[in-house]
């Protein structure tokens, strides 16, 4: 390359330039601007001159200490995420174990994958409205089903009860996402060196042992990926709870994203408060992702060091023997 006197390295900058430009304009600037608004008194629909508050952190303080609605939205987001993620990952792992087990040889795997993934592709707002119609009171498909099966004598008002409302929102999230998680995990298992499974089979490991000793440890990176994407997705949960019950009953399904939307765009135009809430959300997602990365990376390195140590020892021993 160099001998012709052509230096191509500038094309690295040229080709990534559109990305960087779009990022600076449409992501970085808005984030910084949001952070700035969080320190100001910007409110109302008609733009007024804004200035930074005397106590710059007033909005943040108000939110964290004096706003029960915001605190509730944070707790709800966490609760809804855990309620949907735990069963989701368990079921996805279970299905992965079944579908990748050569000895079981489940037929119709392809069809099952297609069907279980399907809810993920349909617009979340459609699904939210659909479920709120399905759970209608006093007559709706689910109530009819309960009646037909003899599970209930009187119609149940699912949507007015805090715990059932929460449960249904978590269920919808679970129902939409476990197929996706399953497919990612299956792909991860396919990527594991088959020799590992063969040697496990030769050593007489049963299904459980193979799964917990080989499959699960090899899936660590992919589990981390699933965890992080699900967590960021969970933090930004909006469509389902917003259109399912609009946060009700009694704010029990109000998520942080809905809180932000509600403060800024549903008639109150409290941009400063919404911006402060966004920043709190941003910081939380940053801390959680960083924490997860740290957790995983640290162990990896520790393991690597340990492996190197034993390797060195073995090498020494081998040298001595010779």
């Amino acid at each position, binding site marked *: 390359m160099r001998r012709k006197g052509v230096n191509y390295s500038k094309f690295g900058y040229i080709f990534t330039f*559109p990305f960087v430009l779009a990022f600076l304009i449409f992501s970085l600037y808005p984030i910084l601007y949001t952070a700035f608004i969080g320190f100001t008194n910007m409110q109302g629909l008609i733009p007024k001159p804004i200035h930074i508050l005397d106590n710059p952190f007033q909005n943040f303080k108000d939110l964290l200490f004096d706003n029960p609605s915001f605190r509730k939205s944070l707790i709800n987001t966490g609760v809804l995420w855990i309620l949907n993620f735990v069963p989701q990952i368990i079921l996805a792992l279970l299905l992965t174990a079944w579908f990748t087990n050569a000895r079981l040889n*489940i037929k119709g795997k392809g069809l099952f994958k297609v*069907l279980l*993934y399907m809810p993920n592709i349909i617009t979340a707002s459609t699904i939210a409205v659909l479920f709120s119609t399905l759970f209608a009171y006093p007559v709706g498909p689910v109530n009819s089903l309960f009646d037909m099966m003899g599970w209930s004598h009187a119609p149940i008002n699912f949507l007015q009860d805090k715990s059932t409302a929460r449960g249904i929102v978590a269920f919808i999230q679970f129902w939409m996402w476990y197929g996706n998680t399953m497919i990612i995990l299956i792909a991860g298992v396919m990527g594991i060196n088959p020799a590992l499974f063969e040697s496990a089979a030769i050593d007489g490991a049963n299904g459980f042992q193979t799964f917990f000793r080989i499959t699960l440890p090899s899936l660590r990176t992919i589990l981390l990926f699933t965890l992080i994407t699900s967590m960021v997705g969970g933090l*930004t949960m909006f469509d389902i709870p917003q259109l399912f019950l609009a946060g009700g009953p009694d704010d029990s399904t109000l998520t942080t994203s809905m809180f932000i939307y509600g403060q800024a765009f549903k008639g109150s135009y409290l941009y400063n408060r919404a911006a402060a809430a*966004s920043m709190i959300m941003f910081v939380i997602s940053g801390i959680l992702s960083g924490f997860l990365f740290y957790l995983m990376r640290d162990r990896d390195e520790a393991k690597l060091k340990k492996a190197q140590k034993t390797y060195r020892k073995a090498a020494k021993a081998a040298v001595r023997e010779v």
Partner: protein
Amino acid sequence: MEKIKKSSAVNTKISKTIIYIICIFLAVLSILPFWIMFVNATRSTPEIQSGLSLLPSSHLSRNLHVLLDKSFDPLHGFLNSLIISTFATLCTVYFSSLAAYGLVTYKWKLRKPFFTFIICVMMIPSQASAIGFYQFMYKLHWTNSFLPLILPAIAAPAVVFFMRQYLLATLSHEIVEASRVDGSGEIKTFNRIILPLMMPAVATQAIFAFVANWNNLFMPMILLTRKEKYTMPIMVSLLKGDIYKMEFGSIYMGLALTSLPLFVVYFLLSRYIIAGVALGGVKE
């Protein structure tokens, strides 16, 4: 020994039966809500209220009529969503491929920092910047325009990441060298030779970008206030409003209409979509 073998065979059979039952149950669980939606779209409100049925009835045209009478305009929403999703998808796949190619092929100083930066950017939730973004667009008079829904798609870190992994695995440097020898400029090489080579990756990412843009609710809901600009998901949210209070058949009809295209596309492309999820997930 014989006995052990037999009992383990029986065990396998029992566990297999249980597994099939669970899988079939889950499959039914995936289909049933949509099935009820399509069936109820053909039933009248009194029929729907009288109980659950899995067989279609004959009120399809009436429900459609009621639905469209009340200013619900799925065709318009469909068209708006189509415009936004198509252009956003084109922006995403083209510029992400370009950035990924720049990352893989050229040796520039900031290459490694740029890659780390992309990984970090992937973690940022889009809502975190929504307020500033809205204010910014408001000042530009870009609310009720499709531009703020399309142009940010140029910077799609996750897609760049995916494309980079794909290029690392598939691109041989000889192709780039050969086209240089033949006198092709760098940009031309990318457009004529590299991009066609990347088609499998582009296709999977295009499907996902399209679906994600099609399903996006938060940003359009903030930015689009004029009715004729509404996208499909916003249209759907109208179905929950008071105007359809007692017209259950029409609500189901609206839901069915707004999701039908996605069902068709999904069943046509399901194989690629699932392969795409699988590929996209294995990020190491």
